């Protein structure tokens, strides 16, 4: 089993990932979609004003991507620190 030092390091790395991803989460929704919506609306992409697009479309796409990025990062981290769950029959996967 893991030493408590390794576990602490694993947890710290996890917190760093969560912090970075939540910063993006905040930026695209509360930032681009709410606080900065007026200045961004001066930029147009096709028929969309950019701020409006983030508020009604873009933020949702980014949310989906963020979760899958976190899943990948954590799957790798779990293996690096050897804390992933093993299957009962075989080792790994």
């Amino acid at each position, binding site marked *: 089993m893991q030493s408590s030092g390794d576990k602490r390091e694993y947890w710290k790395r996890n917190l760093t990932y969560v912090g970075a991803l939540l910063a993006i989460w905040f930026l695209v929704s509360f930032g681009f*979609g709410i606080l900065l919506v007026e200045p961004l609306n001066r930029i147009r*992409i*096709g028929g969309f004003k950019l701020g409006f697009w983030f508020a*009604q479309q873009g933020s949702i796409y980014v949310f989906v991507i963020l979760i899958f990025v976190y*899943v990948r990062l954590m799957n790798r981290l779990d293996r690096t620190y050897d804390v*992933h769950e093993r299957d009962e029959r075989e080792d790994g996967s």
Partner: protein
Amino acid sequence: MNVQAWTFVMVALSFALYIGIAIWSRARSTDDFYVAAAQVSPVVNGMATAAGWMSAASFISMAGLIAFMGRDGSVYLMGWTGGYVLLALLLAPYLRKFGKYTVPDFVGDRYYSQVARIVAVVCAIFISFTYVAGQMRGVGIVFSRFLGVGINTGVVIGMGIVFFYAVLGGMKGITYTQVAQYCVLIFAFLVPAIFISLLLTGNPIPQLGFGGVLTDGSGVYLLDRLDGLGRELGFGAYTDGQKGTLDVFFITAALMAGTAGLPHVIVRFYTVPKVWQARSSAGWALLFIALLYTTAPAVAAFARANLLTTVSNMPYREVPTWFTNWEATGLIQFEDKNGDGLIQYTGPASDIPNELTIDRDIIVLANPEIAGLPPWVTGLVAAGGLAAALSTAAGLLLVISSSIAHDLVKKTIRPSITEKSELLIARVTAGVAVVISGYLGIHPPGFVAEVVALAFGLAASSFFPAILLGIFTKKMNNHGAVSGMVAGITFTSLYIAYFKFLHPELNTAEHWWLGVSPEGIGTIGMALNFLVAWVVASFTEPPPLEIQQFVEEIRVPRKS
């Protein structure tokens, strides 16, 4: 075949499917009944979560709300999706590792306190009943408009169906029926959206047609046309907001944290076998939800454009049949104030008085008819609305029954009870809850819509901080958590009660505290919860050593 016949066929087919699945996936143990024996794959669980999450409000009401709110509608779009990021990153994997049955289970164990457990049970039951009454009402409306039966008969039929598969199958039955219901509801939502997008903008993808050029030969972008029409008729530009920025911020935050704290959503993450699957399951759930949630604002814009161009200045004698049909239900009302026989549909900033009142809830249901689509599409939409309402109702009923059978009876009143009798109690409670919610659907308290805002505020100001602190700080103790939850809930519900029930006439921006509406107050309640919990915890004894070890344990996926 006409609309009614098509609706009957679509609804009957979908109901037969749900019953078939329910019989195939009966629950045999409490483990099956509460969490489907924790054997559900992440993609399937994601789909079931999406169906359980998207209620009659998402399917029937949301696009209509956005059509009338314009840009301000984004509070629902971001609020009800952004919460899944919080779930995936902050709650789901740790709750899966904890691995029991309910949200009160976690609160009670982590804070080593029966008081905390009972506070959690009360919150869970209250939130769930609030929601489920709204779902039953939605079922009744769909039945009465499209199948020509009374709202009450509609509610009773809906009750019968939910009773059958929730009581028989528990979580296992619900999970697999929800997968079928997701397929029905997303198909029903996308088909008319694609048709209308093609008709209006020539683009089959609604998300792109939303930003596309109109096909009427004018070469104008859809959204520019909407902005122009909005200004001309005195509604204001569609892509401009009317609400204060701070209020939009707080409402969005309250809906996000509320989503992450709703017990019927959280409990779904107990059903997957592994921790990493809880994370990815939240991703799949949001992907499936995003399919509807990115289409809804497009549908809203299409519907708004169609509505304004169809009815504005149209002679009342020449209105299309859909207009007359909905007028009969009282959900569209026309009053010819200036007696010119034309429909003047105008907003608050116009000099011409408005003569038309349209209930927002009919937009999605009427949309296929407004756009002149074939009758089978309308039938499909009705079946989709029912799927959305029934899937959510079933998930909520399960929370109610597990809170009572597991948290109250097994964990608090009679721990000696056998598994067989616990399962029986869970089934009976689910049955009783179906009947009560049916009753609430037939005799809705006048404040269903208001109470939904309350439910989100309560979840945001109670469960979300308590669970978050329970995972991310080892030092948070029972006194801190309980006083935080009580402070958050009390403040939030008092604020909402003051403006919604005691002084509804004062419910305007200038009377709100700091300009925060009752919908957004949950965010402040949540901040208060964090603050009180932290202050109380720093003046009282830290939790016992075994609780601190328990926290270390849930932070790591592998069992030690």
